[in-house]
């Protein structure tokens, strides 16, 4: 989503550029980030006496909620890397939830995944038709597909589910995958004991380990494989290079004999398939494995936010999905005091960020962050708990905050959202 305010570029090519800063390798950044997040959460849980923040239940919730967001985010990456903004992911996800319920009802959990993906892909195909062949504004088409997706899902529900459940809003329950235990029973039990002991840091660690590694669902494995696979396809294969070039400079790609239209079609359809898959995972992971109207609750958009947060790369997007998944998991599985404690954690995080910016000599940003830290802490101090009506929207609030702060260092694909027509190059 190109910044429309960037109207005046720099034509100054002869004036020497600022020296490039050395960047850490990706794995190092990831390790630092994980340690930092764990650190903040642990400190908060200790100081505020909220063991829930790192409990195994919440951690396992995090995965359950992060997976659909991650898959949608992956869909967003596929689409936008090819230059097509896909706002319609929510609609495609809705189609996916419906398809998954229908497929799961008829053919079991595998059927759910496949049918969900297919339904989402169909939505993607419509978006591709509108934007690539007809040149419709990407965002307008996306909004229309969101409307259509919701309408079609409701329509098909009354047609197919209502006779069964007597309720147009819900589908019959579908069978799930069996998850399996990764940790041997003895280890799992001792971790659980450690967690209950409430000893600082160790209990937190135990909670996190047990939550993430305790019960592994095939959904997690499939999603991770898709994530890693997407990285390799997009960044390490000729197909992926060509696809990315369509999003960076489609005219250049065309001049090199690449059929930009074809790659966009493929990318957008795959993007829809991922969104549909996200819907399927949402259904299979829900408390009651079934389609419910309004199930997606804006996760299609949160997935886009995760993609932006991740700078259009799978690794960063995963971090974003984890963040939003955690917020979602906490508000659903925790208490409102726990969510309230997040304010405390946010204040700490802002404070640490302020110190870091000071170290990088960006005084103004540091002062701003310090002010934010103080304000958030004040809010935390003054209130006992957050209103429960607002707590259910924690992920959305978190998304907004993340968008506000992450927006600056972004580098979307250069030709993202730019209408492209063959032959109109120079």
């Amino acid at each position, binding site marked *: 989503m190109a910044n429309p*305010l960037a*109207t005046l570029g720099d034509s100054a090519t002869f004036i020497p550029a600022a020296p490039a800063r050395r960047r850490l390798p990706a794995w190092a950044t990831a390790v630092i980030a994980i340690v930092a997040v764990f650190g903040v959460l642990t400190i908060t849980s200790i100081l505020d006496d909220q063991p829930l923040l790192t409990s195994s239940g919440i951690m396992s919730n995090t995965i359950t909620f992060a997976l659909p967001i991650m898959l949608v985010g992956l869909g967003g990456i596929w689409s936008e890397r090819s230059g097509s903004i896909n706002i319609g992911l929510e609609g495609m996800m809705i189609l996916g939830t419906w398809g998954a319920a229908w497929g799961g009802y008829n053919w079991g959990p595998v059927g759910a995944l496949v049918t969900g993906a297919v339904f989402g892909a169909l939505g993607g195909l419509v978006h591709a038709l509108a934007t690539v062949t007809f040149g419709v504004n990407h965002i*307008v088409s996306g909004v229309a597909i969101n409307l259509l997706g919701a309408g079609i899902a409701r*329509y098909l529900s009354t047609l197919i589910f209502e006779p069964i459940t007597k309720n147009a809003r819900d589908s019959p329950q579908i069978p799930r995958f069996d998850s399996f235990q990764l940790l041997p029973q003895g280890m799992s039990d001792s971790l659980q004991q450690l967690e209950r002991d409430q000893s600082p840091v160790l209990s937190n660690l135990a909670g996190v380990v047990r939550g993430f590694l305790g019960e592994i669902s095939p959904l997690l494995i499939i999603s991770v494989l898709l994530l890693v696979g997407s990285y390799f396809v997009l960044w390490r294969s000729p197909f992926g290079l060509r696809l990315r070039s369509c999003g960076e400079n489609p005219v250049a790609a065309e001049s090199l004999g690449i059929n930009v239209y074809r790659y966009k079609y493929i990318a957008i359809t795959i993007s829809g398939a991922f969104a549909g898959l996200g819907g399927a995972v949402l259904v299979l992971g829900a408390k009651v494995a079934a389609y419910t109207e309004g199930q997606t609750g804006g996760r299609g958009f949160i997935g886009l936010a995760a993609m932006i947060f991740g700078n259009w790369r799978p690794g960063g997007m995963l971090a974003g999905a984890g963040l939003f998944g955690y917020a979602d998991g906490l508000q659903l599985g925790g208490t409102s005091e726990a969510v309230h404690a997040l304010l405390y954690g946010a204040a700490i995080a802002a404070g640490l960020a302020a110190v870091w910016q000071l170290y990088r000599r960006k005084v103004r940003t540091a002062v701003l962050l310090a002010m934010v830290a103080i304000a958030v802490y004040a809010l935390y101090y003054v209130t006992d708990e957050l*209103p429960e009506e607002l707590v259910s*929207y924690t992920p959305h609030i978190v998304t907004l905050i993340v*968008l506000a702060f992450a927006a600056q260092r972004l580098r979307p694909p250069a030709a993202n959202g730019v209408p492209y027509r063959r032959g109109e190059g120079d």
Partner: protein
Amino acid sequence: MIAKLISSLRAPVLAVAAALLLCSLALIISDANPISAFGAMIGQVNENTSAVDILNSTAIYMIAAIAAAIGFHMNLLNIGIEGQYRIGAVVAVIVGSAISLPGVLHWLVVLLVAMLAGAAWAALPAFLKVTRGVHEVLSTIMMNSIAAGLAAYLINPDVFGRLVGSSKSTEELPESAWVSGLDLGDRGEIFGLVLLAAAVAVGYWFMMGRTRFGFELKASGESPTAALAGGISSTRMIVIAMLMSGAVAGLIAMPEILGRDHVFTQNFTLGYGFAGIGIALIGRNHPVGIVFGSLLWAFLEKSKLALDDVHVPREIATIMQGTIVLAVVIAYEIVKRMDRAAEQRSVGRRAAAAELVSADAEAAGEK
């Protein structure tokens, strides 16, 4: 003039026809009779309060569409209209029931508060866009969700609300804030604030066509770079457009609340925001297009009940709405390309002819 009218109608007519075709197909697939379905939809207009309901809804949709259109002119997709009108409504009713003023002044103040609240809810996305480059689609969608939570919180009996039976609601607006309508007995009551919608439409048309602001808005939306060179600051335009869009959005629920319900409850009507966006797209942001689009949309909404009677899933109407929007934007693209090619041909012909003339003159006269 007539020719121009016909040519600008080409696209929407084509689109509606295409949508009709697609929906007939969907109906046939689901074992229903398209003809009886459409027949029922058209027939119900004359029954009971249908006609008046359609008129009332049209007015509300017009306000929503104009809110969306103002944003569209500046290339802003204000998806947040849903949240803005919800906040506008709840704040306006809470404030309105807390103050007391003589008749006309009271509901005028309520309207004003609704506009301010709607604008305030649009302010954060506007600010984030111009300072941090956050795309307004994402931020306004988040704001919509948060609005739902905030409104629910505000009508909590512990805060500003009260319990009516088992559902939560605001206090009722005193009668001085009510706006009476035109009572047609059996046929229903036309909301008094239908006139508000008309006023907004006229104001919108005037602003876009005749004022400097309207010009600057359109220029900025089409080419921020050219506008910048022409002395128009796109940052300023973005903020003003978003705030204005939010302000108009705040008014959306007012006809229903001031004219009929007099309270804001949990069962608040949703969906006007997205409808407004769709209608603005269908009507190309043009005041006349918006009026007709609103009429069409209201008709489709009302017909859902009629479809129930013939045992056709009412979602067909929703799908029709979505399909029409998509079909219209596609049709507009096609028509635009055809027109541009034709225009270039005509200019090219003229230029070629002029070249021939001057080449002849060159040959005939001095070298």
